[in-house]
């Protein structure tokens, strides 16, 4: 009986300029002949490469032994045919089997090196994944939740949905959703191990069970298609240099008829009185600073376009302003001073800004704090919420 033909669920691609051969998707053929053209492509890539050929398997989700055997066979053969060639197999730390399966390769062929590498999904990763951001996130969510709690139902949130929070940070939003909306399932994914460890601890401390925290890459999740009724991605599209790739994944894991919900900022619209000018100058500079690192913290109002272009329908968009008058002004102050710490203390330094610039830059944050604490002052941080439905 001949196997029924169905479209392959993997892709191979050779980028000759960078000498990168990449394989992505699921590779579980019944027989090696199903891979013939990909293997030939790899052989060809090895013939045409000089020095080092990279074999990028970061986005390879699953692979069976038939494929593993065939691919590694071609790699080993290529090295033996051309002793001057080196192969670097690049795998992701997220995909557990890959790290295990490939780790022996260099033992059988020293010209093959295996590297785990997924630290450059987006340019500003280093600033946002490490510990410094954790306190910001915690206070931010506390303040935005006052608004989002009421906003979410307008975007389709209701009890009993299967929810995924992608780029969940320290997972506090997932905890709040879990308490308020009793989802049937809730998955919270992030690529920061320290944030996830924190998230698990918080959930444990509160005795909350049932939130599925997972370490992953929003640009290529291990989640299968059409799983969730409500997919959220908060304050995160704005930190990727190619937000459309993330949206594509959000779309993929969302069930037809389900909704994708995103929140984003427009930093240059942060405001305060008194000292409006200094505040405005600094937040304009924040936007430029992020742009320098290829992040668009002005994305908020553009989210409608992004959602439309991602193929969603029934787009709903609104904005809200977190202010010093929402609860304790000190919360607002804490957020701003955490921003100052990371933006002025870390990112501006990394960009190579002069001490004079940094001083003026810091002053705007200080003035924002001054406005927040001023008895007649007003300080605000605007946020855009947008959602759209995946066509049924």
């Amino acid at each position: 009986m001949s196997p029924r033909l169905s479209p392959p669920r993997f892709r191979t691609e050779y980028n000759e300029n960078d000498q990168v051969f990449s394989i992505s998707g699921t590779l579980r053929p019944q027989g090696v002949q199903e891979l013939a053209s990909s293997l030939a492509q790899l052989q060809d890539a090895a013939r045409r490469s000089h020095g080092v050929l990279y074999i990028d398997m970061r986005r390879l989700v699953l692979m069976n032994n038939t494929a593993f055997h065939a691919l590694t066979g071609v790699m080993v053969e290529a090295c033996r045919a051309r002793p001057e060639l080196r192969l670097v197999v690049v795998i992701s730390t997220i995909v557990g089997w890959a790290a295990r399966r490939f780790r022996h390769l260099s033992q059988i062929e020293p010209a093959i090196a295996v590297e785990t590498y997924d630290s450059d999904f987006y340019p500003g990763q280093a600033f946002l994944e490490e510990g410094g951001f954790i306190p910001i996130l915690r206070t931010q969510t506390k303040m935005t939740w006052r608004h989002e709690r009421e906003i979410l139902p307008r975007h389709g949130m209701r009890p009993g949905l299967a929810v995924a929070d992608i780029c969940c940070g320290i997972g506090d939003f997932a905890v709040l959703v879990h308490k308020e909306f009793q989802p049937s399932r809730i998955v919270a994914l992030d690529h920061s191990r320290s944030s996830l460890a924190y998230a698990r601890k918080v959930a444990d401390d509160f005795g909350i069970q049932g939130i599925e925290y997972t370490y992953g890459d929003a640009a290529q999740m291990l989640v299968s298609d059409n799983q969730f009724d409500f997919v959220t991605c908060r304050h995160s599209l704005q930190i990727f240099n190619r937000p459309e790739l993330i949206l594509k994944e959000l779309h993929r894991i969302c069930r037809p008829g389900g909704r994708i919900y995103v929140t984003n900022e427009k930093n240059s619209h942060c405001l305060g009185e008194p000292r409006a000018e200094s505040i405005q100058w600094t937040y304009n500079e924040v936007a430029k600073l992020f742009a320098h690192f290829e992040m668009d913290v002005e994305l908020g109002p553009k989210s409608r376009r992004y959602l439309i272009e991602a193929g969603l329908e029934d787009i709903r968009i609104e904005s809200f302003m977190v202010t010093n008058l929402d609860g304790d002004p000190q919360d607002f102050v804490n957020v701003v001073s955490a921003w100052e710490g990371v933006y002025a203390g870390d990112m501006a330094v990394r960009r190579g800004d002069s001490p004079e610039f940094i001083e003026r830059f810091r002053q705007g944050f200080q003035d924002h704090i001054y406005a927040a604490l001023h008895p007649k002052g007003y300080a605000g941080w605007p946020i855009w919420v947008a959602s759209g439905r995946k066509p049924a």
Partner: protein
Amino acid sequence: MATLAKDGVQDTPFEPMIEIELSIEALQAEWRQCDGIANYVANMISHNRSDSIRYANLFSSALNELMEIAFRASRRLDGRVVCRILRCDGIERVTLTFPCAAADRWIYEASVARAGAEDAETQYLSILAGDLAPVHQEVLSAMVIECHARLTLESMDAEALTLVADLPLERLVS
């Protein structure tokens, strides 16, 4: 470590989770089903693991390999494969019962023994390096070396063999 079947495997405190029966003919006709079933089962059993999504990915990888062995093992198309998943703490037990003539049983016995032998890692490396070995040998050795699986065989009756794999994957995911 792999050992050959001993008495008492059934008495362990493993809790049954899922049992499915699959037709070899249907699987051969639509190979992709194997992938679909492995993923489906993996998702079902993983939700209460500490990282459910990555656990499901790793489990699907292991389960699919084992199922492929069972499907490829049988020369007859009219047979059926029974797959059971059981759990005891951090370990998942996969049992696969597949048609296997009494005369062919030694093939699997030898492979399970080799996969769990003292020098299993050296043997595995030489298989990777191109030493001729049957496909199921490569897979079983990989299970032991890469997933720390414990493998055993049980023979239920003259026509069927059961491969039992204990997979301590929870430890590997975190």
